[in-house]
């Protein structure tokens, strides 16, 4: 079995240690005998066929640099998702999944509109530890921990569910108690730290969802997550302080 991951703009969108997310996907596949191939895709490169597309966060300037290139790929990415691929967007990458990002000066940066959401820059940055309660499948409640640092206030379109409910932190906009988005196989979130090491359940959910794209039902072998659980427990306790 093989997981194909496409890391979009790894040279530009990597500000919050996005590499950690790639390391977690790679190792958690390899520890189970699943091979994992990560292809970078920079501006102008052909879009690789993948089971999972990853879009991280960058400095404002870098995000502006890649945004026009990303727009050209909106159709291909939508087609990939319709064909069963999964997508994970973090921070700036999350915002770019939506329709638009409105900056402080009223400037607008269009996103790819893959998910029905939009973002407007607020007067302050929302910074700090985050704890979420998630329920991606009915009855399977999970805790998600990490760190957020964003000026954008994101609102989801009617009928869309957030990735989780905020227990500690600000979330999408500091108002409605939701954080991130989960729309079928597409997940977006402001949570970094990076996201996946301390939330191995989400890493495994993404691996499984992405693999099922071509393989039908997949069962992932459980791994020894003692350190992962301890890091999550500590992060949750520190966020509550």
């Amino acid at each position, binding site marked *: 079995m093989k997981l194909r991951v496409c890391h979009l703009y790894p040279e530009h969108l990597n500000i*919050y*240690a996005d590499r950690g997310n790639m390391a977690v996907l790679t190792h958690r596949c390899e520890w189970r005998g699943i091979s994992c191939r990560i292809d970078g895709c920079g501006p102008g490169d052909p879009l690789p066929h993948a089971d999972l597309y990853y879009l991280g966060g960058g400095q404002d300037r870098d995000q502006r640099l890649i945004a026009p290139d990303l727009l050209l790929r909106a159709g291909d990415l939508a087609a990939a998702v319709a064909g069963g691929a999964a997508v994970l967007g973090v921070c700036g990458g999350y915002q770019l999944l939506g329709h638009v990002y409105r900056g402080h000066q009223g400037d607008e940066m269009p996103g790819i509109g893959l998910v029905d959401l939009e973002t407007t820059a607020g007067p302050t940055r929302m910074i*700090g530890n985050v704890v979420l309660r998630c329920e991606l499948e009915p009855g399977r409640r999970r805790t998600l921990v990490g760190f957020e640092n964003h000026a954008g206030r994101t609102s989801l379109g009617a009928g869309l569910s957030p990735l989780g409910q905020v227990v500690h932190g600000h979330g999408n906009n500091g108002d409605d108690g939701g954080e991130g988005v989960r729309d079928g196989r597409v997940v977006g979130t402001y949570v*970094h730290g990076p996201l996946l090491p301390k939330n191995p359940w989400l890493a495994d959910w993404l691996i499984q969802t992405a693999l099922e794209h071509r393989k039908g039902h997949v069962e992932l072998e459980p791994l020894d997550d003692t350190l992962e659980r301890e*890091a999550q427990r500590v992060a949750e306790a520190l966020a509550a302080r």
Partner: protein
Amino acid sequence: MLFTAKLAAARATATAARLSRAGGGTTLPGKLLLRMEPDAIGRLARRLASTTVISATNGKTTTAKMAAAVLEADGRRLCRNAGGANLTSGVASALLAAGRGEEGLFEVDEAALPAVVDALAPGHLVLGNLFRDQLDRYGELELIGDRWRSMVSAPGFGATVIHNVDDPLVASIGSAAPAAITFGLEDDGAARTSMQHAADSKWCPRCGTRLVYEAVYLGHLGRWRCPACALERPRPEVRAAAVRADGLEATEFRLELPRGDVDVRLPIPGLYNVYNALAAAAACVAHGVPPAVIGGGLEQFSAAFGRFERITLSGRPAVLLLVKNPAGTNEVIRTLAADDRPKTLLLALNDRIADGRDVSWIWDVDFEELVEQVDSVVATGTRAAEMALRLKYAGVSPARIAVEPQLGHALDALGGEDDAPAYLLATYTAMLDLRRLLEERGLVRPYWEAA
């Protein structure tokens, strides 16, 4: 209240802080003084014979200590914020203790720099490097760069800017200054074959095109040029060539100065310390210090607190290494990896405000480069488990990793052979805690005396 009375009140706070062992009195007196007299820094600085300010993401404290070693060897008396308190309050506290005729030498936090430069009006300003650092505290690198650029191009700005042309962003900021002295490395032997993951500023500061590097020395520092707009690194006036590491003991290089070359044996490892030495040497060139005195001063230098500081821990050699951000930590790791003996490590990760609340940065550090050499690791600090997790994903077997959040327990849990050195890497507040513990055990001096 008269200015002199305010000074006396603030000085009394410093004495009280030391007597109560609350700390070295390195920030509180200045804070108090600035509350009573907002213009105190400017008024006190005018009494100094000269003022030099040093800023950078990495290497401020070491550069200041190296420059101090040289300037003192040249017979000057210095006023310094040697305890590492590098915000306005730390500078004000140092100025409180200044005597007539002394020369000011201050390291200043990169975010606080524009305000401090405005108050101090230094004659010399050393800009070392800009790396990605605590994003939750400083914001993005580009923002700091923009503030520095506005500072040096402001009307009234009168300092000679001594700057590192190997850093594209710093080079472009320095070129906007009215007067400048440049420094950089000139040694292909020290170059890396590829850029590290954590490299920042790899885009042209003028036109945004990806830069081309003839040589990458450290992070994004190297011999760069822009293929589109032809902006390129100028040849520096102060250079280090023929760099050779003598294990983890010392680094030898030829220091090329406008008034002649001098061979230097720097008693500390790491290419990043060659950059610190270059910054210090260039600052001393600006002060008219002769080459032989600069070389001699650098050889006399001893490591600043927690910067490759050697101690003996229950009879075994140990080295204290402060780590703060990916670029600095990568250089520490690269330096340690050059000595391929098995290593015992203690990694202390805190997430207090001074460390950065966001610990993401450890995932941008190339711990992978040390994996083959790791004999055993103790992870400690408020985020001990997170540190352990990082090492697990770097490829260290969890069986070799102990998680001991309490520093004291972590020290006791250090494994390995008694004659093999232990390397203690700690973030800022973890290093302060570690030093306090080691002081209690009689192994190091308090930080405000050691600096």
